[in-house]
């Protein structure tokens, strides 16, 4: 399958997304905001629709909309204007409703739209890959640089605040990274399924991990394996890649849960 350039591009993009999504997802899962990716993803859908309507590349409008959605969710949560789940619901439903209205106005209910919603291995261009690589490496580098501070806030937000860490800035950074991840992942996994690739590898990894750092490392491996195995299956079985990648991640979660159960009985 690697004789086709579109598969080489899809695999390269999938590898970056598979590694990045769980790293960012780790912080969302630990803050018990696993569904924030879904909320931002639905706003990204509205961004895709807006791109069609005004004739700009949907990738960029989706990225801007995702960042805006992340800012709104974090602001609502941090200022206690709404509980975390309520803030999420507000953004989630507004995003999907806005997307439906905009996409209808643009007359763009077509197969190309579906590639943004559920991913496509045919749509990653060379310029897309360059964008994904630059933004993906930048996001991973940000996490690496601020890992200790991010872990401190994740472990004990109030303690971090007392110690003088810039907690709102670090929480905002996680939300920004989530938006960025969704923006660059939608060509492969789709905006409606990317949240699963952020969450499932993490909850699989923490079943068998022995520390926070091993949880992050194992979740990257699970995400990478899910992306590559999912893309391979997608190619040979002619299935949508987003759904296939997520189902592989689900299977790996079940495997990890089984290992945990067996280990606890030994």
């Amino acid at each position, binding site marked *: 399958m690697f004789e086709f350039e579109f598969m080489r591009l899809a695999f390269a993009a999938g590898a970056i997304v598979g590694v990045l999504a769980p790293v960012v997802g780790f912080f969302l899962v630990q803050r018990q905001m696993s569904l924030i990716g879904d909320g931002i993803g639905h706003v990204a859908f509205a961004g895709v629709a807006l791109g069609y309507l005004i004739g700009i590349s949907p990738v960029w409008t989706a990225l801007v909309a995702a960042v805006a959605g992340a800012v709104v969710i974090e602001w609502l949560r941090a200022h206690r204007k709404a509980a975390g789940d309520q803030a999420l619901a507000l953004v989630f439903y507004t995003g999907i409703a806005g997307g439906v209205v905009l996409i209808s106005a643009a007359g763009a209910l077509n197969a190309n739209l579906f590639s943004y919603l559920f991913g496509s291995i045919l749509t990653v261009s060379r310029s897309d890959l360059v964008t994904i690589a630059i933004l993906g490496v930048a996001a991973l580098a940000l996490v690496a640089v601020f890992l200790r*501070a991010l872990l401190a806030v*994740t472990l*004990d937000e109030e*303690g971090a605040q007392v*110690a003088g860490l810039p907690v709102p800035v670090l929480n905002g950074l996680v939300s920004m990274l989530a938006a960025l991840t969704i923006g660059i992942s939608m060509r492969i996994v789709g905006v409606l399924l990317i949240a699963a690739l952020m969450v499932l590898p993490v909850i699989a990894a923490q079943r068998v991990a022995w*520390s*926070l750092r091993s949880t992050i490392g194992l979740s990257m491996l699970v995400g990478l394996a899910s992306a590559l195995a999912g893309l391979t299956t997608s190619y040979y079985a002619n299935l949508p890649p987003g759904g296939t990648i997520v189902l592989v991640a689900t299977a790996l979660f079940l495997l990890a849960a089984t290992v945990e159960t067996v280990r606890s009985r030994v």
Partner: protein
Amino acid sequence: MPLAVELDGVSFAYLPGQPVLGDVSLEIETGEFVAIAGPNGGGKTTLLRLVLGLERPNAGRVRLFGDAPDRFRERPKLGYLAQRAQLGVQAPATVLEVVTAGRAALRPVGRLTAEDREAIEAAIERVGLSALAKRPLTRLSGGQQQRAFIAKALAPEPKLLALDEPTAGVDVAAQEALAELLARLHDELNVTILYVSHEFGAIEHVVERLVLVRERIVFDGPPSSLPGVWHDPSHVHV
């Protein structure tokens, strides 16, 4: 040397018309070991949160080592154990990872220095968890978890150690062990300790000073001078 903590005519209410603290004045010297006790809802945790800058007073003035708490330049040197301290994560955080997080404000980015590692190892050793440093907290007893959180508070080599209900959820033996540990830390490190708890039986033989709070300060002195009736849990502290 400035006072460690100074409250001058401090009043605070979360809701209008429902004061939690009224006209409270308190001075704590650097290096003192003080228990702040009182009934639930009496304002002792609020008092600690005001000292740490987590809340702002409606009236009066709070000073932490001479500065307003939110302008205190050495905030990374505040060791804090929150009420019902527990991990904010579901992933298996080890003792070493939790204690290292206590040093994060001093070294938010870049590699840990040898000095950082020594401070982290020393904090773990002081609470007697060296042999369990790489074990996830989820596999430790309640008392051991509490000691890990105290090691986290010790990791920045604090000027002030603030503990809010540190004995909640641990058995009597662990409470007594914690009191002995804190007494030893106070002697060895000469750190200012604020110990907030709704009951003070386990700690009164090791603290120098007891402050009882029920909206106002109703007792302030050495535990030995406390009238016998105050030791009765049914006493309402008015």
